[in-house]
C-alpha cells in the first residue's frame, strides 16, 4: 500500500483555481468538515496532484492561465474516473462553458462564483451520500458540525 493510500482515510479534495484567496476559503470550509484539501493554481499542476494522490473530489475553476478548466475536467474524467468533478465558476450563464462541462466532462455539480453559503457543505454531503459506508466517519463529522454550527 502506498503512503498516499494510507493517508487516504481522510476524504481528499483537490481545488484547482488561479486565485489563492479561493484556495484558502475552500481549505477553511472543507477543512472544518474533516477533509484534507490540496490546491493547485493551474490545470497542469492540478492534474499532477490528481495522478499522485487519491482524490475523491475535484473542484475546478473555468478561466485560468494555461489549460481551461473544462479541459482539465475532461482530462480528469479519463485520468481518474472515480473522482467526482465539480465546476466552480463565475461563467455559469455561459453555454460555451457549461455545455461541454456537463456533456463532455460530465460534472457532478455546477457551483457559481461567488458561491452561496452552505453550497460547499451540501456538495460534500451529497458526494459522501453516494458512498455512505466508506465515508461514515466523514459523515459523522459533518453531522457534528451541523449540530454545533446550528444557530441556538
Amino acid at each position, binding site marked *: 500500500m502506498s503512503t498516499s493510500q494510507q493517508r487516504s482515510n481522510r476524504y481528499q479534495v483537490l481545488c484547482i483555481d488561479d486565485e489563492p*484567496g*479561493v484556495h*484558502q476559503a475552500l481549505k477553511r470550509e472543507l477543512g472544518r468538515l474533516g477533509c484534507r484539501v490540496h490546491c493547485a493554481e493551474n490545470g497542469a499542476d492540478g492534474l499532477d496532484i490528481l495522478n499522485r494522490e487519491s482524490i475523491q473530489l475535484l473542484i475546478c475553476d473555468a*478561466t485560468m492561465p494555461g489549460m481551461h478548466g473544462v479541459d482539465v475536467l475532461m482530462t480528469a474524467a479519463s485520468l481518474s474516473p472515480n473522482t467526482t468533478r465539480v465546476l466552480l465558476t*463565475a461563467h455559469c450563464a455561459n453555454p460555451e462553458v457549461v455545455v461541454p462541462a456537463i456533456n463532455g466532462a460530465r460534472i457532478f455539480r455546477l457551483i457559481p*462564483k*461567488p*458561491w452561496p*453559503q452552505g453550497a460547499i457543505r451540501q456538495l460534500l454531503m451529497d458526494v459522501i451520500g453516494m458512498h455512505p459506508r466508506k465515508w461514515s466517519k466523514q459523515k459523522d463529522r459533518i453531522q457534528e458540525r451541523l449540530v454545533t*454550527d446550528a444557530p441556538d
Partner: protein
Amino acid sequence: MNEAIPLSEVLELERCARRDAERRLDAANADLASALAELQSAQSKLVHSDKLACIGQLAAGVAHEVNNPVGYVSSNLNTLGEYVADLLRYINACRTLVIDCANEGRTIVESARNVETLADAIDLDNVVGDIEALLAESNEGLSRVRKIVGDLRDFAHVDGPDLALHDINQLIDKAISVAWNELKYKADIVKEYADLPPVACFAGRIGQVLLNLLVNAAQAIVDRGEIRIRTGQDGHDVWVDVSDTGCGMAPSTIERIFEPFFTTKDVGQGTGLGLHMAYQIMRSHDGEIRVHSEVGMGTTFRLQWPISGPTEGNKVDDDANAR
C-alpha cells in the same frame, strides 16, 4: 437683325444674376454649416457611444474580476461566523469554570474537563491561529473589489470640458486595472515608466485610448505573450508606447486601421471604431498616434502630445464634441 439691348438693361440683368448667385451661395453656405454641425454632433455621439461600448464590454469582465474576491470574502465571513459561535461557546465554558473556581465548589474539575473537551471539539488551536489570516485575506479581497470598482467609475465618469493636469503613469495603471480581465490570461504586463511631470489632458479620453490599445494588444496575442508599456518625455512632449508580441499587421492593414469601422475582428468582437477614435482624440490634444508593426513580430503604438496640452483652438473644438 438683332435689336441692340440697352446698356441699362444689360446691367440690370447682370445684377439679378449676381443677386441670385449670392442667394444660392448663402443657401449653400447655410447647408454646409448645418451639415458640419450635424457631423460634429454625430461625431461626438460616436465618441461617446464607442466609449460606452468599450466600458460596457469591459464591465462584464470587471464583474467577473470581482466575483472571485467576493466569492472568497463571503466564504471567509461565513467561516468567521462559525468561528465566533465556537469561541462564544468556549468563552462561556471558561466563565463557568472561573465562577466555579471563585466559589471553590466541587464542580471545578468537571468544568475544567468541559473546557478541554470543547477546545478539542471546536479545534480551538486552528480557529485561534486562523483568525488573523482570514481577516487579512478578506481585507485584501475587499480592497481589490474597491479598487476595481473605483477605477471603472473614474473611467466611466464623463470628464468635464476643462483640461486638467494628470499623472499619466497612474492613468495607465487604472486602464490596466479596468482591462485586467482581458489581459491577465493573455499577457505578462511589463511597465517601464519614466518620471513624468503632470500632463495636461482630458483624462477620460486619454484613458479611452489607452484601454483600446491594451484590449487590441491582448486580442492580437493568440496564446500568451507580453504587453510592454513605456512612457517618456521628448522635449515638450510626453509619449506612451504600447507594444505587444501579437500577430502584427501587414502594410495593407496598417493603411486602413484609422478608418472608422475598419476591423478584422468577428462581428460582435470589434466595431472598428477604437483606433479611429484614438486618432481623433490624439488630434484634439494637438498630438498624434503612430504605429510600427510587423507580421508575426508584434505591434507598437505610440501616443505623443504636448505636456502643456492642446492649444485654445482645439480646446474649443473639444468642447463642441463633448456636448
